[in-house]
């Protein structure tokens, strides 16, 4: 078949396809959407013929353009985004975390191990604190928890300050977690460093405040958000370690394939932990600074901190892991 005949035979179809792609909202489309896949496949076949028969490059170019646009249209299906989101939040996230439980455990050890060691070290000899922080910083932490130990009810700070702290906590904590995840791309070195350093820091602060007699203030402040916040950081560490492991030991895949598959399996978890940290920031900014009797703070805070644990253990069991 000559090119001119071929063009004459299919011109109306190509025109309709181009019009359909360019259609405006409200205008009558040249054909109903369910015909798109069949028409797209026809177009693909015509492009293949055009190439095979050495028709002019201009025609190849034109059909290639149409095919590419049709391809983008056909394969850009992100339509059930909200349903996927609901399902992920309703249990997929927990199942994901359970599937990575070895890595979560490793990250938890890297965070809490140094923390407990540091608490012990500072308990035995307070000088050890200065391995991690300067004396001025230690004094700063102590001052932060000292002010107004007696007043009950609302804090000295007003609602505006609460909100400003909310912005700060989100910015700071989520950024740390994202960096912890991205650090995995350096073989996990940065992730390990970030976990261990934060563990040591928490250990120092906790022990020094207890030694300064401010333990009650400290625990009443942190108990509410610690579950979400530490949980989020541990998960970020787990994701970073997993990514680092894919880089160092890709197994029987090429390194880039291993990274890609691992990255795909982790991104949901990273989004989930970001949401956890946002919840932690909400609690930390609006609930934690409230001055209520210690048992109330401890009870409510403890319950809040148990929530993520319960979620990870029980949610999403029906889908299987």
């Amino acid at each position, binding site marked *: 078949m000559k090119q001119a005949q071929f063009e004459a035979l299919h011109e109306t179809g190509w025109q309709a396809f181009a019009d359909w792609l360019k259609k405006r909202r409200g205008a009558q489309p040249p054909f109903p959407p369910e015909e798109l896949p069949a028409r797209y496949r026809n177009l693909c076949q015509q*492009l293949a013929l055009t190439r095979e028969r050495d028709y002019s490059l*201009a025609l190849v170019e034109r059909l290639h353009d149409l095919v590419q646009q049709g391809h983008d249209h056909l*394969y850009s299906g992100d339509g059930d985004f909200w349903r996927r989101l609901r399902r992920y939040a309703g249990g997929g996230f927990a199942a994901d975390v359970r599937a990575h439980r070895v890595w979560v455990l490793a990250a938890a050890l890297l965070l809490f191990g140094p923390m407990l060691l540091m608490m012990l070290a500072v308990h035995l000899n307070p000088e050890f604190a200065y391995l991690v922080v300067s004396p001025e910083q230690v004094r700063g932490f102590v001052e932060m928890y000292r002010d107004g130990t007696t007043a009950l009810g609302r804090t000295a700070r007003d609602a*505006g300050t609460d909100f*400003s*702290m909310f912005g700060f906590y989100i910015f700071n904590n989520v950024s740390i977690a994202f960096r912890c995840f991205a650090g995995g791309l350096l073989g996990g070195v940065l992730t390990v460093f970030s976990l261990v350093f934060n563990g040591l820091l928490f250990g120092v602060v906790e022990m020094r405040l207890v030694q300064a007699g401010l333990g009650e203030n400290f625990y009443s402040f942190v108990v509410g958000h610690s579950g979400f916040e530490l949980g989020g950081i541990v998960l970020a560490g787990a994701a970073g370690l997993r990514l680092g492991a894919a880089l160092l030991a890709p197994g029987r895949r090429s390194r*880039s394939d291993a990274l890609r598959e691992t*990255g795909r399996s982790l991104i949901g978890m990273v989004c989930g932990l970001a949401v956890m940290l946002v919840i932690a920031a909400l609690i930390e900014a609006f609930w934690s600074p409230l001055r209520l009797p210690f048992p109330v703070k401890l009870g409510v805070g403890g319950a809040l901190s148990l929530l993520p644990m319960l979620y990870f253990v029980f949610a999403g069991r029906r889908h299987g892991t």
Partner: protein
Amino acid sequence: MLDTLRPVTTPELIEIRLHPAGLLPRALAWLIDLMLRFMLLALAGNLFSLLGEFGSGLWLLLFFLIEWFYPVLFEVLWRGSTPGKCALGLLVLNDNGTPVGWGASLTRNLLRTADFLPFGYALGAVSMLLHREFRRLGDIVAGTLVVYRHTTPATLIPTATPIPPTAPLGREAQRAILAFAERAPRLTPERQEELAALLPTLAHGAQPPQGAARLLRLANHLIGRQA
């Protein structure tokens, strides 16, 4: 091959060609985005400073969102390009040629942090220079490519009265003629004739237009210009 084309085969067994973009245009696009983000934040800073402490919280939230999600929102909701990429005619695609989705876009943009190390995107730049398809680390993990938005090179060919070839031409011959016609405006007339002499059977016919002029007319016919 010198051309940095990436052929992608769709499930319909049709080949689509993608043209990955290198370090320089991507760096420029990033600079444009950086300036835009900076202006946006400065503007918001002025506005929110009227709200006192509440405003500073709002500004920090906005800073957080822009820092991490500015590229994601644009790439997913605005056909694959941030304003900077759009200005340079770039867009982000999955490496199978499909438009980029939330997961891939988030992955490549969260991993910017790793590309940034140790300073100023040094690692990302090295990765792009070493990779055959100019991918930075985030692109490798997310399985994404930054490509040029499709343009038709045919517009570069100078206009002349088209004439049909005497015999059907193969793909290679068509390509050679088109490549010659695209480059002709930048060559001296002597050099054009020299090159045309390499294709004696095509460049010389029974009728007057001979040599380079004839090849230009053939090219005009090949790209489908009407007489």
